[in-house]
């Protein structure tokens, strides 16, 4: 670890309403200050490295509250180390790992294992999310208290949605005791059963079983109402429909403790991407319609949708190289998230860079009560610098992730991460 002066960048830190050309001084593992004069504080310090950030945006590091790192259980697909380095390459300084591992992360020992692996990873910080139910079976509550003590920051049965309204109610009440959010993958199982894509005209044409929007919306409103009943914090994962945005807005207007996330792919692609049976456009929830996409963008702009998360879901090449209905759901996202968001949201003026950084850094930190998300003096030195104008062609062979399953292969995207600092250590650096 050394000290850094990030010099001459455009510092965008929505946590302190900052957007100006300035220097950022990192001393040890904290941000010492931001401004035109911090260089003076640093003058004469031994071992100070000055990094020229002119032409770059310097922001608090991005935080992804939703990714799948596959370890333990599927280390051939991703490990905590490769996932943490992929995150760093994407400008993320912290990620939250979903518990649908094998075995399921449903106890303090499993949480401790992830913390230990993450400490060896030399990438982004990794915060475990514990399971809601033992084995994600949707029956008995997992031991939230012990998992939180071991380092879990939230609970979720992501991938195996909680079908029982009673279990969800209990989880919200019990999680409230420990001050953690309950993150739910909203999917009404009987409606979604066997579905491979959005239900609509494309599924009718392709002869694929569809998942109707209502499968998500029914569970979204169930969860919102249970949050109203219990006072617990419900966090709705990867929202994909106009109806969900409207239901969240309804909940927030009534002061219900609901937060929500959306993924970059749901803000950039529609069900048309599935045409031709493209298994790299298969995910759950599925890509929806242009109308849903417009509503989600509005939600990101006005804050109804609190934050953007990747749902990074690596799969082995062979698993995706098969018949559409049999291919697994999910795409990787850590190394394309920023560029997809800049290309489809900032360059097309849906939101400005300040809002994007708010949704990718400040809001995730706030929502999951994580360190970071700010460059205020004394904050952890989790900093990202990126070139918002650099264009690059997506070549999955160059990813740090073991996953190659992305629908953006060959596309030219705008926005490239140049520097990622976690706790005062450079974990990713890519000069122009």
């Amino acid at each position, binding site marked *: 670890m050394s000290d850094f002066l990030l010099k001459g960048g455009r510092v965008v830190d929505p946590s302190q309403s900052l957007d100006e050309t300035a220097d950022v001084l990192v001393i040890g593992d904290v941000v010492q200050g931001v401004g035109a004069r911090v260089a003076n504080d640093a003058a004469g310090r031994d071992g100070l490295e000055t990094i020229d950030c002119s032409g770059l945006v310097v922001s608090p590091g991005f935080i992804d509250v939703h990714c799948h790192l596959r370890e333990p259980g599927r280390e051939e697909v991703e490990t905590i180390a490769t996932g943490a380095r992929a995150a760093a390459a994407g400008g993320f300084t912290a990620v939250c790992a979903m518990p649908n591992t094998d075995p399921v992360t449903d106890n303090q020992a499993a949480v401790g294992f992830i913390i230990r692996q993450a400490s060896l990873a030399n990438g982004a910080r990794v915060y475990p999310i514990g399971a809601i139910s033992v084995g994600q079976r949707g029956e008995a509550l997992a031991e939230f208290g012990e998992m939180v003590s071991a380092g879990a920051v939230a609970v979720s049965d992501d991938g195996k949605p909680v079908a029982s309204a009673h279990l969800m109610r209990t989880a919200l009440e019990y999680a409230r005791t420990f001050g953690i959010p309950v993150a739910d993958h909203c999917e009404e199982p009987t409606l979604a059963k066997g579905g491979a894509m959005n*239900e*609509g*005209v494309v*599924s*009718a*044409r*392709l*002869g*694929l*079983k*569809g998942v*109707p929007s209502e499968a998500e919306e029914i569970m979204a409103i169930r969860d919102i109402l249970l949050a109203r009943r219990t006072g617990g914090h419900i966090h709705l994962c990867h929202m994909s429909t106009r109806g969900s945005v409207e239901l969240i807005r309804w909940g927030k207007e009534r002061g219900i403790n609901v937060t929500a996330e959306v993924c970059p792919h749901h803000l950039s692609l529609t069900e048309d991407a599935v045409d*031709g*049976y493209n298994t790299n456009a298969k995910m759950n929830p599925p890509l929806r319609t242009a109308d849903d996409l417009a509503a989600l963008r509005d939600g990101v702009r006005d804050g109804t949708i609190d934050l953007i998360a990747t749902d990074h879901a690596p799969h082995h090449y*062979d698993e995706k*190289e*098969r*018949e*559409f*209905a*049999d291919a697994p759901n999910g795409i990787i996202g850590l190394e394309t998230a920023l560029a997809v968001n800049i290309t489809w949201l900032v360059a097309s003026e849906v939101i400005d860079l300040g809002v994007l950084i708010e949704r990718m850094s400040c809001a995730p930190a706030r929502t999951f009560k994580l360190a970071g998300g700010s460059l205020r003096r004394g904050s952890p030195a989790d900093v990202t610098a990126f070139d918002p104008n650099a264009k690059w062609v997506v070549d999955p062979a160059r990813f740090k992730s073991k996953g190659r399953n992305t629908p953006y292969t060959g596309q030219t995207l705008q926005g490239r991460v140049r520097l990622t600092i976690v706790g005062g250590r450079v974990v990713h650096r890519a000069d122009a």
Partner: protein
Amino acid sequence: MIPALGKDLLGLEPLSGEQIKLILDTAEPFKEISERAIKKVPTLRGATIVNLFFEASTRTRVSFEFAEKRLSADTVNVAASGSSVSKGETLVDTARNLEAMRIDMVVIRHGASGAAKFLAERIESNVINAGDGTHEHPTQGLLDLLTLRDQFGHIEGIKVCIVGDVLHSRVARSNIWGLTKMGAEVAVCGPRSLLPNAIDELGVTVFDRVDEAIEWADALNVLRLQLERMTAGYIPSLREYNRVFGISRERLERAPRELVVLHPGPMNRGVEIDSDVADGPFSVILDQVTNGVAIRMAVLYLLSGGRPELAEAAKTGDGRRAAGGGRETAGGKRDDE
């Protein structure tokens, strides 16, 4: 200009009306071969064709096999059980292994929508879709079109209603594309639980009452009702289905005009269609089966690079040589004239 079919026949959705008409016209001269005492011409002599059937099929497989044999192709039938598929081999490995044996064409039937396209994108042989999941069954759609054209003399302007489980039917999809591209008016009729939610967006009319459909239509294409739809909860009972949607003689006799009744088979007599209709004067069900062989001969001939205007001549010689080219002309690189 002659519109080429391209390398594969994966569905009728990607084809133009002109291309569909080309296949139907090419089938005409092939009809006669099956009426001969010696039902064999040398057109595809030397071509190797694999019939790769991952789902049980009698009619379609036999129809393809007759079409191939009557054109003198060498054929091999691979059924999913009894092959490496049952040992867990993936579709792509199965295909690549077959191709390594230097085959010319694959006819594939598979339970997954998109399987034929998946295969076609990964091997160089011509691929013919013999039914993929609930997506398309293009040769069935084509033989239905040929049968209708035989009956009415034309397809443009005729009114065809597809009756039954459209949601799960690849026959329905191929018929909808083929008929609309050829200028027919298309309607569907069935329980709403067995129609795609977005059916209106496919350019078809919906009838909830089969009697209204019968009053409107020139022809009915009656789909097979898979018995498992009842156990899966899409309809309450076969008895009620027959009472509400079954095609009976009594219903047909109330029609303002004589209807033509098609069925892709195999039939559930007494469920979607009554026996006195299936075996009655309006039924063209066996004509469909006969036409199926001619259609499949036409598709095999065209994909192998044969020229449609030479189909008649091709019957007496090597068709691909008569076409003045070979397999390399199949990809649309044929001269425009």
